[in-house]
């Protein structure tokens, strides 16, 4: 894997950072930069390569790194929210569309 001068490397500890969140952040980066995620020992290593000509790309390596870190922070937050709320979400969905909804009057 070649690392060009414009590439940015960001590392995370496998112990505290989930792969799913990194992948989701990488997805959001599509069109701005490609992100290759590798595991080296106990670290995730993300190689960000800016897409040339992209209007949305942050200017400069530092800005891209900050942007990616923000995206990862957001995805971690989303994981936490899902953990805390998925069960009540399912309850609400089943109330809305499941058998519990069967007895309701359908004419609103």
């Amino acid at each position, binding site marked *: 894997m070649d690392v060009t001068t414009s590439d940015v490397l960001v590392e995370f500890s496998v112990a505290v950072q989930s792969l799913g969140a990194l992948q989701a952040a990488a997805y959001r980066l599509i069109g701005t930069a490609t992100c290759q995620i590798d595991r080296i020992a106990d670290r995730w290593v993300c190689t960000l390569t800016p897409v040339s000509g992209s209007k949305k790309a942050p200017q400069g390596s530092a800005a891209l790194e900050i942007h990616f870190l923000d995206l990862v922070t957001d995805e971690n937050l989303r994981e936490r929210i899902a953990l*805390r709320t998925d069960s009540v979400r399912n309850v609400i*969905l089943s109330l809305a569309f499941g058998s519990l909804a069967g007895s309701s009057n359908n004419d609103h």
Partner: protein
Amino acid sequence: MARFQPVEAFHPAEDTLQLLPFRFERAEGHYLVSNMVGDFVRLSSDELTRILDLRVRPGDGLYEKAYAAHLISGADQNAQRQLLAFRLRSRLAFLRETTPLHIFVVTLRCEHSCPYCQVSRQSTDRSRFDMSKETARRALDIAFESPARRIKIEFQGGEPLLNFALISTIVSAAKARAATADKKVDFVIASNLALLDDAILAFCKANDVLLSTSLDGPADLHNKNRPRPGGNSYELATKGIRRAQAVLGPERVGALMTTTEASLDRVEDIVDEYLRLNLDGIFLRPLSPYGFAVKTKAFRKYDATDWLTFYERGLKYILEINRCGRHFPEFYATLILKRMLTDRPLGYVDLRSPAGIGLGALVYNYDGKVFASDEGRMLAEMGDKTFELGHVTDSYRSLVLSDKLIELIGSSLTQCAPECADCVFETHCGADPVYHHATQADPIGIKPLSEFCARQKGVMRLLLRLLESSPQDAAILRRWGGM
């Protein structure tokens, strides 16, 4: 002796709060948050983490804000959960009225040659590009098989007035069937109005037919987009509009505009043109990437950012007009506002998830082929049959329950799509499998690359800003949204 308890006696006990599902996105220095049914609040980073950790107490202001926004609830409470379920059901109630829109392409013939037209241009004397009576009859069969209690039949082309005889037949037949089938039927003709005459107008009046035409702006702009032998498309369109308004009434005549690169700097002129012609509002919409637009590469000439600049400018100009006392809504904002401010299901088939292809609209082509959407038909003209569902000899059920359609709808659900599933705007947005298939060869599309997505987010962010920053504009926007 009356004994009253202080407010502290009604606070929930410690550790009895529960988090409710919500989504967020970063905004300038804070977070925009939405709950499960799309109500928005803005929170600082600290507020968001406090809510996530349930470090809120009654009386601290944040508890009240979070509770009213359905971000938190009492663990043993029921009302909010039932309320969210109730509202979710309302928002998706459009699914009960499947296929309210039926588009009849009565002819492919047309005497214009607009560069962005998605219909292949056939000259006016080839009647093998007209829909036959038999095809029309079978298409009507299918339309009446759809469960919706109220359907809309829209006549398109080419230029549909070139086959007015068939329109007349279809309208009579539909009205007769509606009476016995206990259905209501509305009719629209989407026409360039160049061929309008007294007989056609009398017919429209007698049968309550709406006329919808295209008006891209003042003469130079409109004629540039719509070349007609004689170069008088604008003159004919405006004459047609006035004539139709005089006979049918202004509320029965509408116009749609298509934004081309030339329009981008002329939004005030376009709006003024609509006002001048006494039209009841305007629908500012971008070009779709199909048919001739693709062939002429017109769609690549402006991107989402360019279009959003155009849109914001136009919307602000229109709000100024409303502030001066004239009621003149922008219809796309109105649609989005209805989604954001109410839970009422909308009849608009192009912005919903599950997508409106097939389920919302069916298109019956002149040759008897049936398509899941108008744009899907246009793709077929270019050889792409992804959205071709079958033929008018098929039944409604077999068309709408076909594996093909279910796969397309199922795979494009925003509720499950990457990025959409976490998007703060998802409840107000929709799937557009045709657009994403046409631009990315995939019904769901990679949303970070999607101009549709960029436009949607841009419009919603703009509307939220306007609702919050200017009380006068907010009052105008709320009235549009409540209409």
